[in-house]
């Protein structure tokens, strides 16, 4: 074998592709195989394409581009795989290899640079985006824009998302997050709270309620300074070096505090955080620190359940269904706790939908860059949601939450059905949500 091919094999994680025996057990679990109907968009098909590049049978890497771009990265295939193929690792290595060779157009390059290097990693920039959102809503520009139909003419279907973006929090409230919140009653544990960039900018209220719920069950909460974006969006887009930088910044920020857990409330972020040890495995000075970080990382549902659960008050009957975060199920492997928390609430009936574990099509920024493919997946999902006759759809990740809101809009069901984050729902049913948001 020549040197060049050998280097390419190492770059592509070729050895991992050999674990795939092409049994096809992943086909029914793959949302894109189900909606697009060809092997080119199936997990084993994609793995085979990477393998063929590693064997020199495909020499032009651009052949891989579309099949890999259209992968949601939900990793449902890993959960059903009987051979333990590390699909996520294969996908990310191949995407990184493609990005390395790809000649982006000048505007594409500029946009990627701004988004990945400036906006997501910077709290200040994300705050600014959050503030702009607030101003946009409150100023009346939103109404005008909706009326004029301008939103539908926005490029790349961004207009479709406008209706589902949550009410923004004012700049004054946004900067009011407390540094440390004591546990109510007997203290059971201490948790450092991971804010997340999108959660912090768009769903700050959910972050506040998360902190409040944690305190309520007996957890002292610390909001760590200098934390940053988890790096998931970078890793999925093939910008691995950027995600490594962000991982290191987070590890540094969180290891200054002596806590039992590092808690997040976004399935996608959590999945990135629990893989920091893989991400930094080949950097000796970081591997051990990453491992310690991962050991403490938990989804909020795990900590709430561990502390004895959230006490629900008697409330009106509500039929709900639960749209799982793929990354929470398939990467973090957190599946039992959210269901356990929901089922403990009085007068709440959880009705599972058909294909409950299948992705909603949100997948980071997939629904923006692959709009049509994403909507086909969403429409299939909404059919299953509607069949449950639930009025509330529970989610555990900001992307899924937005996507489900969009699904409800598309089906013209706003007013009859709503999508909320698990934390919002728990806060509501335990009587916390009516209370004023945390004071300083």
């Amino acid at each position: 074998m020549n040197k060049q091919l050998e280097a390419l094999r190492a770059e592509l994680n070729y050895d991992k592709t050999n674990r795939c025996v092409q049994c096809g057990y992943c086909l029914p679990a793959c949302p894109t195989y189900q909606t697009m109907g060809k092997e080119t968009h199936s997990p084993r098909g994609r793995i085979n394409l990477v393998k063929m590049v590693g064997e020199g049978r495909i020499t032009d890497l651009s052949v891989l581009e579309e099949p890999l771009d259209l992968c949601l990265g939900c990793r449902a295939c890993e959960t059903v795989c009987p051979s333990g193929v590390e699909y996520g690792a294969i996908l990310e290595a191949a995407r990184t290899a493609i990005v390395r060779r790809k000649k982006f157009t000048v505007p594409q390059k500029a946009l990627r640079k701004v988004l990945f290097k400036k906006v997501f990693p910077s709290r200040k920039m994300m705050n600014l985006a959050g503030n702009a959102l607030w101003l946009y809503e409150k100023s009346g520009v939103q109404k005008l824009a909706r009326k004029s139909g301008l939103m539908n003419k926005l490029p790349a279907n961004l207009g479709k998302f406008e209706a589902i973006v949550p009410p923004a929090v004012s700049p004054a409230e946004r900067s009011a997050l407390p540094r440390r919140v004591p546990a109510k009653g007997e203290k059971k544990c201490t948790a450092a709270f991971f804010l997340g960039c999108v959660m912090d900018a768009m769903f700050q209220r959910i972050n506040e309620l998360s902190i409040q719920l944690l305190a309520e069950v007996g957890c002292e909460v610390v909001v760590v300074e200098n934390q940053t974006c988890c790096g998931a969006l970078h890793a999925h887009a093939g910008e691995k070096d950027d995600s490594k930088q962000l991982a290191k910044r987070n590890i540094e920020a969180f290891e200054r505090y002596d806590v039992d857990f590092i808690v997040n409330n976004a399935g996608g972020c959590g999945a990135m955080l629990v893989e920091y040890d893989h991400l930094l495995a080949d950097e000796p000075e970081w591997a051990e620190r990453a491992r310690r970080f991962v050991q403490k990382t938990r989804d909020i549902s795990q900590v709430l359940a561990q502390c004895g659960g959230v006490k629900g008050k008697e409330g009106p009957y509500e039929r709900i269904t639960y749209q799982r975060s793929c990354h929470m199920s398939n990467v973090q492997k957190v599946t039992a706790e959210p269901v356990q928390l929901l089922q403990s609430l009085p007068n709440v009936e959880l009705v599972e939908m058909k294909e409950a574990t299948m992705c909603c099509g949100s997948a980071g920024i997939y629904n923006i860059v692959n709009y049509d493919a994403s909507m086909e997946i969403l429409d299939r999902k909404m059919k299953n949601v509607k069949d449950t006759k639930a009025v509330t759809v529970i989610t555990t990740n900001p992307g899924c939450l937005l996507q489900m809101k969009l699904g409800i809009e598309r089906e013209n069901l706003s007013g009859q059905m709503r999508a909320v984050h698990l934390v919002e729902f728990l806060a509501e049913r335990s009587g916390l949500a009516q209370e004023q948001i945390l004071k300083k």
Partner: protein
Amino acid sequence: MKTMTEAQINEVRQIIRTGKVLTEESDRFSYSFDASFGTYLPDAVIQTKSVEELAELVKFANREKVPVYPRGHSTCLSGGPLPVKGGMVIDLSVMDDVLIIDPEDLIAIVSPGVRTADIHKAAEAKGLMYPPDPSSSNVSTIGGNLAENSGGPRGLKYGVTKDYVIGLEVITPQGEIIRTGGRTVKNVTGYDLTKLIVGSEGTLGIITKAILRLIPKPPATETVMAIFDDLVDAGRAISQILTSGILPSKMELMDKATMQAVENYQPSGLPTDAEAMILLELDGHPIAIRDEAEQVFRVCKEVGAREVRIPQTQKEKEDMWKARKLVSPAIVRIKPTKISEDATVPRSKIPEMCRRLQQIKEKYNIHLVVFGHVGDGNLHPNIVADKSDKEEMKRVEMAVAEIFEAAVELGGTLSGEHGIGTMKAPFMEMELGEVGLDMMKRIKQAWDPNNIMNPGKIFPEPGQKLVLTE
């Protein structure tokens, strides 16, 4: 290298008006494999729900002598759908829209792309059962099951796919649409073409519809697990049970190496110091099978089982079968390349076959585990190896050849349920003899004189040998 010209592809596009003709490099590579060995590039992949379009396509293929390969979800373990001579792969998994259960005639009418598990579900919803249950039934299409005549663990009591097919719609290699059999269980009108097509591995035509026989679903099941310190005792227990008037619906065997692999992978409470374990399922009326379970318990104890367990709760029962399901993922943790064989012997020869397998394992110094549907003699000797180790793979090739020889010598067969395909073609004459194989060839030549229908399968090319290295 392409076997089709640009003009031919254009003509195909004219024929397939409502479907898709995939010719991108990424698509061609994505239909170049199955779950066995080898990569073969087709020139085009055809997807259409229209039987008429497909028939027209086959007429064109026959005229132009372009090979066609019917394909389902490509879970095949013997190379059945591989486009070994280029040409067109016909992806029949898209033909998934007919699934009718007729409780009055006790039949199901299905199109070839319907997944086997969906037939199970639809039948069960009406209190009926479609018994064949290959392990891949969640993924595999019924079309693939029919072409390969798939089996599964329930084969012992209920038989295999061919025992449940009473009618077919088939596109012949000349592009004509014919119907064989019908909706009745009894049908002796002329040659039984239905049975000829089932298991012909796509070499005689494309199945576009099937009529399947259903039976009432047994109301209850019981499970018994028996652990043995000696493989021969386990073999004796199996034949004692089967001669005592009891016919279990499933009877699975795990040897020591298999149990150890499962326990290393995910501890499931299996005894790693025992030589063998039998797991069996009885189905039928709840009171009757309770009685049978106790009878099985006594038989196993009498022949010297170390321990016999009858699970008392649903959870216990599920845990036992879960341990069986973990076998496949567990053994690929030892080494990544799995060669799954399905040589089958008469029931009475199971202990002897187990002994031979042990000798082969030692002779070639390979990782071989034995587990399988032991009640019907369909042992699954699985070899795990590393395909990047060429020297090891050579030893595996020799071991596989010897497994086949042992099975045939004991009055068994090369393949119980996976099919011949490309993998076992070189051994056909050993089992069938020269004339026997020639009679099959004559049938093939009569049906498909231009050899366009799934060429390169079943019949060995001159000098063809088993090759597991690429």
